[in-house]
């Protein structure tokens, strides 16, 4: 059984870099008229050529899955359907790599009215490297690429991502997404499984069979009425987990893919 414990130095202060490390612009005057979405956490913004891109998340970034929202303004006015692409990139001394993500954000979410996408950060930022949100914005009216750059973000450590080497000598990324705030009783369970084809390519695994069992090691028992995660699209699997008390829990997954045993993988949880 593969059990990953990532012990990296916490990069808690990195989040404050977002407010100072804007790479392409120092024109602060242009930010004055931009609205900040009140219930979201602003990751930073990229400005140039009269365009401003703002990035938001639900909170400070940690290793794991995050929804990320963008808004694009031209001269202070919102562009309703901008053309832009996004990708997370970890810059390390020796090399760089990406992680699973959704590039485009053409649809606006009904709650915030922002362009929504997501990314899975597979390691924390810190002394080993830093994460950047790479952005490219095209201006259809001008017919050329209008803005390109990145926003450096801090990512704290967590135990929500397991990258493992399976028996088939392939590497996979298993991400525990839900529950984010577990409660006593039945909780939605969501995980994502991606195949690390290369350092830059992480296609979703859509045919996996995932068995699931929550377990309290200190009590030596689990719980009943849990639901094994099944694929819902794009590498995301949904099920249910029953926590019958608070305390230390293990989320135990057993994964198979096309007859290949991808192993047993465990996330530790405490609430």
């Amino acid at each position: 059984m593969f059990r990953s414990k990532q012990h990296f130095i916490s990069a808690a202060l990195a989040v404050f870099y977002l407010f100072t490390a804007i790479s392409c612009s120092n024109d602060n005057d242009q930010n004055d008229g931009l609205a900040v979405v009140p219930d979201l956490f602003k990751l930073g913004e990229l400005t140039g050529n009269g365009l401003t891109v703002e990035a938001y998340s639900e909170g400070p970034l940690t290793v794991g899955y995050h929804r990320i929202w963008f808004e694009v303004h031209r001269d202070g006015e919102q562009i309703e359907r901008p053309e832009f692409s996004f990708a997370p990139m970890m810059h390390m001394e020796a090399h760089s790599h990406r992680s699973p993500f959704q590039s485009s954000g053409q649809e606006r979410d009904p709650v915030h009215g922002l362009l929504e996408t997501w990314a899975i950060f597979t390691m924390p930022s810190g002394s080993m490297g830093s994460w950047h949100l790479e952005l490219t914005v095209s201006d259809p009216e001008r017919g050329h690429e209008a803005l390109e750059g990145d926003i450096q973000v801090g990512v704290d450590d967590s135990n929500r991502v397991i990258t493992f080497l399976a028996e088939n000598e392939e590497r996979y990324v298993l991400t525990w997404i839900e529950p984010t705030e577990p409660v006593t009783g039945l909780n939605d369970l969501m995980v994502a499984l991606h195949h690390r084809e290369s350092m830059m390519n992480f296609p979703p695994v859509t045919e996996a069979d995932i068995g699931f069992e929550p377990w309290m090691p200190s009590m030596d028992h689990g719980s009943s009425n849990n639901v094994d995660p099944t694929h819902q699209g794009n590498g995301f699997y949904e099920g249910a987990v029953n926590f019958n008390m608070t305390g230390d829990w293990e989320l135990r997954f057993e994964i198979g893919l096309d007859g290949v045993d991808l192993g047993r993988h465990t996330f530790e949880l405490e609430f």
Partner: protein
Amino acid sequence: MKLNSLMRTFPILLAIFSLLSAEVAGIQEIKPPVTEKRTDQPMQSKQEFRIAGVVIDAETGAPINGAHILVAESGDGAISDRDGRFTISLKRSDLQMGQSESATESPESAVDKAKTSIGQCKPTIVPIKTAADQPETSFVPTTAAVGQPVAAVNQLEITLVVTHIGYQTRRLVVDNVNDIEQLTVSLVPAQVISEELIVTAGSQGRPFSALYSEERTRPVEDHLSAASGVHLVTRTNFARDPVVRGMRDHRLDVTLDGMRVTPACVDGMDPVTAYIETDNLQSIELNRGGMDELQMNGVPGGSVDFVMRRPELSTGWSGRSEIGFHTVSGQQVYQGSAGYGGEKWAVRSSGTYRNSGNLHAGGGLAITGSELEKGNLTTSVLFQPNESHQLTLRYIGDFAGRIGYPSLLMDTRRADAHIGGLRHLWRVNSGVLRKVETNLYLNRVAHWMDDYTRDVASREVMQNMYMPMYGETLTAGFSSEARLLSGSHLLSVELEAYRLEAFGDMKMIHIDPDVSEMYLLNLGDLTDRRVSLSAGYRYFGFENWIIGWNGRIEQGFYRLRDERAVATFRAEYPGLVEVEPEQTGYRLGLELERNFSERFAAGLKLNEGTRLPGHMELYGYYVYQPLDGFFYHGNPGLGTERSSQAELYLSMEGGESAWDGSLSVWVNRLNDFITGERVDALFKRYENLGRALLTGFEADLRVQLSPGWRAEGSASWVVGEHIELEEPLPMIPPLQGQMSLQRRGERFGVQGRLRWAAAQNRIAAQNSLEAATDRYLLWDLFVRFAPADGVRLQAGVENLLNRFYTDHLNVNSMPGPGRNVHLSLSYSF
């Protein structure tokens, strides 16, 4: 004061023999009873005639079985049968001689003479003490026999002395006597019965006898165990849980003076017996199987009601203290009480303190961790503004410091109970409505337990984990019962409503500080509200038959107020439609009784109904059951449990014989039986799971060997089987019983007792951890000595031979107590 002191000193059963023994005669005192004269009888000169009639309860109109009717002038007498009927044949010559002899005697000495005379031939029950005189209001005119020629005027008069335990003694003077066929004598219930704690059981109605029944330092369960058909679940040297006909917990109503008190410990450490002392009680009333003719329980096991001791009117100041010591556990018990009784109000307060070391099993094996310490305070105030109304305010405060439970995972650290109630009794001695009794009550129980003093690293269950737990219940209720009597029709109607609030939670703290603390709700702040209406009817109009029926309807409303608990049960039962159900239960019963003679009767009781699930069965969560080693989850989706019962009984009581006895054979079939269904290797859920069948018998026999000596024996047997699981039900007692031989005198009494049980090999081996138990036979010896008025020394040795044994209902096969030498000394004034 002296009179009271004397009367309080002697137990009821001593008085029973007071009519038999010359040494008792003249010392037993009875307050001057009511005396009446009847002068409307036709006269007759025949030498032999008879008096026949019926003795009834003045409040309810119910016939009184076993009342003693004595003719003071001659010593003749009779005992009323199950219908309250009696017949006395008299010779006129005897009466004339008796009147001549007693012409100068006081009424009391005449009674004593009568007791002495009749006591030589048959046993009698006489209350030691009665309340103040009450005017006679219910003497029913007698009817002379017809067709007899009146030849001459006869100036004879006779005095009938009518007594029964629990009632005020009546004296009826009838002059111009002749045949009397329909004399109706109504007895008014006595306010105070006796110093003894009396155990009665349903239609048999006779007290179970034990020499130590006056010892108030003994735990309540010692008295309860004297009744056949009653067994006790033992978890430690304290607070044993009654089991009636194999039924316990939610299948048995255990009440305190009609008040429902809900234990707070989810692991069953604190049954109701944990919060009461013998000193709190006047009697224990059993209703085996819930089939008593007028009482109707909503549960198939019946009821155990601990009737509280009430203050006495017109007694002035009184007090009592007792200390007791038991060697088997080093237990010291200190008890004291004081009271004052005026004409219209009375008050009584008492306190009991217990401190015990470890219990020792037979052979001297110390059961470590079985120590206890607790205190109990009780106050009762009685107010009786007139003869019709009586108010009683009661309060019990019980406070336990530490109680070890060696058979469980944890020990009680602290337990507090505050139990209060107001009772109103309205006596209506005329018209159809005879009595209305209303109870209002409120009680709160809080219970803390933990295993901080246990070696948690070595145990198999919940290893390396400390588990402090807390439980709390709040029970408030109301009940009102009305009894109506019209001719031979007796009807009882009762409305009851109560509300229970219960909460329980626990932490699990690993001995490794790096492991985070765990927390769960055992009872998620629930409410269980019930309202019920029940009625019972009896008809006495047939000559040799009594018929009766009863019915009950009950509605239950449940709420689970903690959202975490709701989420928990939603998770456990994803298909559950309603977490907070409402349920309806019913019960119907029928009774037929045939009297073959004044002594012999046989009857059949049938009972059919449903039981609403209890709050632990619905909402208990993660509750450890040491019986089978599983953790139990409640199930809000449970349905009602249906039971069908039948009981056939034979009774041989009253009359002239020295032999009394009864035999009951019963069967109880439960459908949709609520029990634990295995989920995995660790957990069970309550489910309506198939059918269970229980059957058994109880037998009692009492023999008056001589005026001083009395022998008793009882036995009971229960067989339980789960039909679908094809194995015995767990925790079913084996065939067991007891025999005793005793002699009670004025100053000295002695009793030898033999307790025995057969081996129990019918165990639920597949679905529990129950272990078979061996047979045992234990000898006990009790003596009582009263060296002076008000002073009483009691001593005894239980398990005389120091046998090692295990009662089958001892949890985790905890052994029973070894040889126990106990002493108690009491003083009362």
